[in-house]
């Protein structure tokens, strides 16, 4: 505080303390980058990564010293904090861009119509060609089955929590829904394997995988549906009761339709989340290189396990196929995701 008071008494025409000009960060940034690059050229320090770090350090030091001299300690700290906060965001964006760029660049190498429709039947890991058609079918079927289990149960459970649930039971369920969100995907796979394959003697199949995925979807759907139901204004329910409509019809005809868009969004996000799960599939299905359109019998491939199989084969042709599979998977998930976001923005309840 004292510094501001001092400077304002020194310059009576202004009530504000000394401030750096608006272009100060840009100037310091340019100086930092130029000197870091120059240093890199002169000393031969290796790598763009090291140069970036050096540039960032020069920027922080220069800005702090300048700001400390003109504005005082508090503003120097504030500028330092601002720099750190901004840079955290770029730290997060760099891997995302790197991942998406790599998937796109390497995935397009062997991407073709044939890759989308062919299977790996009679294709050796070493030779190029083949495709992920069988895996795409498997993923779509398994995710659809999982959704068919998890969505009705999830929506009903959310209705219980919002419309019917009171007291200890509802609180316990609500708590365990949150805890269930954190169940590792491999534990869901272990559970389905021990309970259904070992316990009930079911064979390892696409259906078993779908059950494991359903366990992972369920808490996500309950949580998002619950949030959507809670936004529905009570006036709507009361108006319906006042007209003599019983509670269950009120829920079905008034509450659910009002929040439908949000529920659909939540379901799509849950689908997007489980479509890329690999671990539970490894435990609950056997991999196959051929088409198997029946999820209830025999081994069935899926995109994540296809990628896993190709990458662990380790030949250059199979690694190429793994990246192409990754591109297909990420495209599929992005489609789910963007459709969900569009629905949410379009139909979000106002207020």
């Amino acid at each position: 505080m004292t510094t501001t008071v001092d400077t304002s008494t020194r310059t009576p025409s202004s009530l504000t303390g000394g401030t750096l000009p608006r272009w100060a960060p840009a100037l310091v940034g340019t100086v930092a980058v130029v000197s870091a690059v120059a240093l890199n050229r002169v000393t031969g320090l290796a790598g763009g990564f090291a140069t970036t770090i050096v540039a960032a350090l020069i920027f922080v030091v220069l800005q702090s010293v300048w700001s400390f001299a003109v504005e005082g300690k508090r503003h120097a700290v504030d500028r330092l904090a601002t720099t750190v906060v901004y840079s955290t965001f770029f730290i997060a964006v760099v891997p995302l861009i790197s991942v998406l760029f790599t998937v796109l660049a390497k995935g397009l190498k062997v991407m073709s119509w044939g890759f989308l429709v062919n299977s790996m039947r009679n294709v050796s890991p070493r030779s190029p060609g083949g495709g992920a058609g069988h895996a795409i079918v498997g993923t779509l079927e398994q995710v659809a089955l999982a959704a068919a289990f998890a969505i009705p149960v999830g929506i009903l459970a959310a209705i219980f929590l919002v419309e019917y649930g009171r007291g200890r039971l509802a609180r316990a369920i609500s708590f365990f829904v949150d805890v269930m969100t954190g169940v590792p995907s491999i534990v869901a796979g272990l559970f389905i394997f021990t309970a259904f394959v070992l316990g009930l003697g079911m064979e390892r199949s696409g259906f078993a995988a779908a059950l494991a995925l359903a366990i992972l979807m369920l808490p996500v759907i309950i949580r998002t549906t619950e949030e959507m139901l809670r936004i529905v204004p009570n006036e709507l329910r009361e108006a319906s009761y006042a007209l003599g409509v019983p509670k269950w019809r009120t829920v079905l005809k008034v509450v659910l339709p009002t929040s439908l868009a949000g529920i659909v969004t939540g379901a799509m996000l849950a689908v997007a989340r489980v479509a890329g799960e690999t671990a539970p599939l490894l435990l609950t299905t056997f991999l196959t290189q051929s088409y198997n359109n029946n999820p209830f019998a025999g081994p069935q491939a899926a995109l994540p396990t296809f990628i896993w199989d190709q990458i662990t084969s380790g030949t250059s042709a199979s690694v190429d196929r793994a990246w192409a599979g990754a591109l297909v998977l990420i495209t599929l998930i992005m489609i789910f995701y963007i459709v969900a976001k569009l629905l949410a923005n379009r139909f979000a309840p106002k207020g």
Partner: protein
Amino acid sequence: MADATTTDAASPISGASVRRGDRIFGGLSKYAGLTVLVIMAAIAVFLVWRAIPSLMTNTGNFFTEQSWNPDGDPSVFGIAALAFGTLVSSAIAMLLAVPVGIGIALFIVLYAPPRLAAALAFITDLLAAVPSIIFGLWGLEVLIPGSAGVQRWMSDYLGWTVIFENTLELYGKSIFIASIVLAIMILPTVAAVSREVILQVPAGHKEAALALGATRWEMVRMAVFPFAKPGMISGAMLGLGRALGETIAVALILSAAFTINIHLTEPGGNTFAANIALKWNEAGSNGLSALVASGLVLFFLTLSVNMVARWIIARRSEFSGAN
């Protein structure tokens, strides 16, 4: 609580059909809710049931043994190396991801231009939508070759810390790389939870700080952090839960050793989840049971972490001044 449906059904017309409709629908939704409890209980019961046979025949100490040979005769296996790899990689991932995640949340809510905020939040959510196998692929093919130089530098200049010392001069599939990939993967979780609590900080608190002449950082320290701290802690815990249970990315990146190696950049390391995925298809019946036993430990580990996180959130909302 036993029959909330009938007491709640206070509709003006109390015809028999109405009550029956409510009882059926309310009962149905109650059973749907109960499935959550049933599934959680069943997971514990079935894992314990299948874990017991291997634990009975194990001749090594389950908690301290550094080898994994459950199908051998005698059967010897232990989770020491798995626990070490899991806890160390998750801890490093937390160290990296929590400050960055909170920084991202601060950036989106308080620093970025409001028009950009929604797009930036979307980008961090996008990071959450990338499947773990793709992160594993990226770590294997991009991060490992790309970071060898940095790791060599760390070994040369930070080698005195022992953990960064690399006596083999090999920079490949290591716990260090796994930790970085885990950090990237839990970043969206930490950022999303922190963002939510920072959004809830009452505008009055922030404006009061600014009106008193605080700089933006002082406002963050004095008004935002005290309010949002429990939420940030629980966000970090949820991220920890995710890191502990992450399977495929780690299975691709680690080279599955069964010894505890303190040199984190040297090839080796293993985690509960990765070990299950890697050993699953080659395991015999006792081997499967041993893997289930390690999965049980993982389940209770993540369960307790998540319960503590949720408990912190729940306690917070009761005393929240925001509502």
